[in-house]
């Protein structure tokens, strides 16, 4: 009865979502308040129904109810509790249900926290959310129903893909979905603005925090996925330009652009039409990501089931939403009022530059991801577009953007002074130059690009700090008054600083780990010792061990430095009998920001084993940087002041103001 209640709740949610799609929007168009007022309670009811349905599926996993096909296919009674829970979304059907759960959660949040949003806008936004919800619920019920049953329940399940039995993967999909789906809110706001033909003053105030929230989750989700690939796949790589990774990276790039253009919009009422377009573009990329990952077009750990019917279904949803919203944009955008004016060199101008480069970078990734697919579809020829392509296209687009980051926040709104901004960055430039020289001095010509990369990273970090300090005018008014000004700065200033600082941190990690990593692949016998970046690793042997639902061969290594034993490493290879699948569990030791990474390869008959060892200097900075960025985003969200961008007053009438769009 419990399972069928969950199933019915899902069906009910679908029908309710259909009502949600029609009634509030109808009310907004005909200015009927009572129809509009249905939006919020229905959004909450949708959340309750889908949450109930999700809770029931989770119960089925916990209770190992193998009469539910989905549980039977993806669970096992001996699986540890945490993976019984994460198994709920570790498969196609469950993950789509999680997708919708997050969608209606956001809808419900909009309903709860939008008391001061004009009623028509609120009703239309929730109505658009209703369209998305209805489309995806239909998709679930028609092609991927997690509540399908088997009358004769088997006694044991097929277990979860062992690669997914991992803490990282328990957290990664929900975070990523929170990001993807979060952009549905900005999309709904954009489409609502187009339908209503006006952008309210509250619009930007609402879009920016949602964009920021989605961006924070997406950042964390991508970082988590990257760290998972790093430690679980056993190759020690953290980014592969794999289409699945690109699928999440594209909305992130577009979302970053959206975030910045939303700032301009909130503070200056400029870039309105562009922001609407970006919001549509970002969510379209999220949908595209879902399509690429879920349709089985791409083979990867994410493509749980290759089913052409599902792929076609998502493709239709994709075409309707993307095609429909862009058509709507072409038709209605001219109705929207243009925003304010600004000079090319100004904060607005800098943010336009940011948007330009980020959008171009998104397009380059989009081409690199879709071109091989299109080529294969048309000619049947398989090509793989990897790091070389992206290094040549994405890289050059990023460098000017990264160089420009410190300048942006220092320029005044409406009309800026590049020279004054540069003067305030002298110190940051000096620090960056010193860092680059230090790297050059230490490693010489072996790595030509490393000093430049390190210099760029330090430039961004120092620039972020310099910007914050210049706002306190600490050099003009003395330390104590400067510090009190620092405390008095709005939280959003710290958010900006941390966001930009985090980019520098991640860049530093990328440059260091790429340029200076040491790698060693060799066959070792018990008793063998080898040297790795100043650490001596002694392999003492390999022994079997029994886990709850797997057996493993655990290698043991003793790590010494200067003769003293400092740590032990136990990399292992596991076999999950339910699926007969092996996995590699790398052993990772962290020293400061650097990591020693050991994974096992083939075991030989004579007790020898292939070992792959890396020393990766400063690699953790890659993920710590994303954490810093996310913290910056969260701090900025908590600052609920109204954002007003005070323009720099014109001393004399300056010529050369250009329209915003």
């Amino acid at each position, binding site marked *: 009865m419990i399972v069928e209640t969950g199933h019915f709740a899902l069906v009910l949610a679908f029908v309710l979502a259909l009502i949600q799609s029609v009634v509030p929007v109808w009310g907004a168009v005909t200015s009927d308040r009572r129809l509009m*007022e*249905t939006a919020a309670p229905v959004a909450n009811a949708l959340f309750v129904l889908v949450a109930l349905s999700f809770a029931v599926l989770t119960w089925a996993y916990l*209770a*190992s*109810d193998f009469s539910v096909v989905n549980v039977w296919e993806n669970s096992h009674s001996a699986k540890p509790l945490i993976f019984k829970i994460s198994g709920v979304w570790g498969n196609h059907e469950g993950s789509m249900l999680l997708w919708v759960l997050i969608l209606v959660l956001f809808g419900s949040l909009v309903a709860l926290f939008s008391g001061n949003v004009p009623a028509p806008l609120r009703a239309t936004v929730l109505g658009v959310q209703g369209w998305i919800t209805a489309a995806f619920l239909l998709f679930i019920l028609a092609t991927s129903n997690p509540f399908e049953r088997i009358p004769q329940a088997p006694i044991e399940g097929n277990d979860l893909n062992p690669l997914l039995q991992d803490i990282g993967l328990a957290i990664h999909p929900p975070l990523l979905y929170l990001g993807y789906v979060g952009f549905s809110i900005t999309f709904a706001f954009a489409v609502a603005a187009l339908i209503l033909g006006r952008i309210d003053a509250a619009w930007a105030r609402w879009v920016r925090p949602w964009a920021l929230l989605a961006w924070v989750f997406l950042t964390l989700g991508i970082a988590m996925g990257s760290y998972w690939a790093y430690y679980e796949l056993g190759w020690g790589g953290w980014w592969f330009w794999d289409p699945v990774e690109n699928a999440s990276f594209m909305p992130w790039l577009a979302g970053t652009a959206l975030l910045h253009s939303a700032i301009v919009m909130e503070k200056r009422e400029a870039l309105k039409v562009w922001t609407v377009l970006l919001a549509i573009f970002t969510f379209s990329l999220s949908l595209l990501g879902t399509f690429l990952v879920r349709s089985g077009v791409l083979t990867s750990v994410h493509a749980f089931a290759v089913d052409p019917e599902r792929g076609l279904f998502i493709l239709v949803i994709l075409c309707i939403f993307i095609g429909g919203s862009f058509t709507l944009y072409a038709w209605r955008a001219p109705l929207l009022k243009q925003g304010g004016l600004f000079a090319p060199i100004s904060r607005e101008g800098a943010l336009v530059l940011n948007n330009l480069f980020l959008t171009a970078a998104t397009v380059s990734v989009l081409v690199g991801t879709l071109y091989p697919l299109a080529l294969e579809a048309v000619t049947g020829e398989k090509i793989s577009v990897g790091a070389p392509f992206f290094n040549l296209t994405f890289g050059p687009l990023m460098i000017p953007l990264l160089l420009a980051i410190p300048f942006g926040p220092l320029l005044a709104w409406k009309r800026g002074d590049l020279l004054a901004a540069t003067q305030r960055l002298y110190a940051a430039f000096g620090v960056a130059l010193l860092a680059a020289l230090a790297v050059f001095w230490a490693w010489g010509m072996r790595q030509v690009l490393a000093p430049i990369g390190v210099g760029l990273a330090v430039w961004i970090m120092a620039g972020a700090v310099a910007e914050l300090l210049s706002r306190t005018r600490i050099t003009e008014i003395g330390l104590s008054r400067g510090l009190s000004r620092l405390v008095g*700065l709005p939280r959003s200033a710290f958010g900006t600083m941390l966001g930009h600082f985090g980019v520098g941190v991640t860049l530093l990690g990328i440059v260091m780990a790429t340029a200076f990593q040491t790698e060693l692949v060799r066959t070792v016998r018990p008793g063998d010792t080898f040297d790795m970046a100043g650490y001596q690793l002694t392999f003492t042997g390999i022994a079997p061990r029994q886990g709850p639902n797997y057996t493993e061969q655990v290698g043991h290594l003793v790590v010494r430095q200067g003769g003293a034993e400092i740590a032990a490493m136990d990399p292992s290879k596991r076999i999950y009998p339910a699926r007969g699948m092996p996995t590699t569990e790398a052993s990772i030791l962290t020293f400061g920001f650097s990591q020693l990474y050991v994974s096992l390869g083939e075991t030989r008959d004579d007790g020898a084993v292939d070992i792959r060892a890396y020393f990766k200097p400063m690699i953790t900075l890659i993920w710590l940087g994303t954490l810093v960025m996310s913290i910056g985003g969260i701090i900025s969200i908590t600052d609920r002041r109204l954002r*007003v961008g005070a323009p720099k007053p014109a001393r004399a009438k300056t010529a050369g103001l250009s329209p915003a769009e």
Partner: protein
Amino acid sequence: MTLWILFALMTGLTALTVLMPLRRGSASASDAGAADEAVYKAQLEEVDRDLQRGLVDAAQAEAARTEIARRLLAAHKQNQRNGKSAATGAVKWAALLPALLLPAGALGLYLWIGSPDLPDQPLEARLQSNPEGQPVEVLVARVERHLAANPQDGQGWEVLAPVYMSLGRPQDAAQAYANAIRLNGASEPRQSSLGEALVVAAEGLVTADARAAFERAVQLDPAAAKPRFFLALALGQEGKRDEAISAWKRLLDGANPNEIWVPAAQQELAQLEGRLPPSLQPPRGPAAADVEAAAAMSEAERGEMIRSMVDGLKTRLEADGGSVEEWVRLIRAQIVMGDKDAAKASLAKARETFAAEPPALDVLRQAETDNGLGS
């Protein structure tokens, strides 16, 4: 019935979330234009606060105020031009939607794709419930759980092994027989069955391990037919034609022609002696035939087969008394099948049967403690 009442409640509550706001018809929320004005007024206050905190200087604040005031004026004018909105007749239609679409749509769709008749089947509950009428997989899982907790229970392995064979899991059966031999000691039937399981696992090939098992079985009981059958088969498979022929002849010599294996043995012999073209009749022992028979059985029949094994033992013991060891085996079997009451009943029966034999009563008392049947 409870299910349908629950569904009706859920549908009703959901419909209410749409109908309630339609009934209320409040006019509390602000208008779009008024909301714009409110935002701009709040922005003006924010500029004042920023000025106080020293985030902007006086000139910047003034410029910001000018801009916002301009927007405020525009919004105000716009607001005055727009007439107030009026409720339309659409409410009635909108109320019909949830009132009709929700129950009809949800119920129709659910009846189409749902399975209202299927109860929940959480694993623990299935393993705890009455073994009667359970599919054989559940019974096997029960025994497996029992053995995972008590791996030293030789009787359990002994009960499980033939079930594995009939389920077409010869590899597991071989392991179970090996465990039974380890814990209960070697005997001709156990060794022969182990060998047979290994042969079936190897798809009819008598492997070295299987041969070793059959050889031990022959040592334990030189007259047993089954191990000698397979050893003869092994000789044939190894290409030792003459030895195989004499082995088959010795086996068939004096055998009861009604034994099921005799025709197969005769056929093997005929083939080796060249009386049959090899391609016409591929060699097949009784093992392969058994597996086919088991595979052809339906699930219910297989469950029946296990129960009938236990029931057969019970009926026989109740009829002719049997040995105390056999009674203990029955009790064990009933315990591992999860039927504690039946085990208690059997124990009581056994006590009656052996009331006059104190050593047997001791064995029964031991069995009672071992199986946790004591009160």
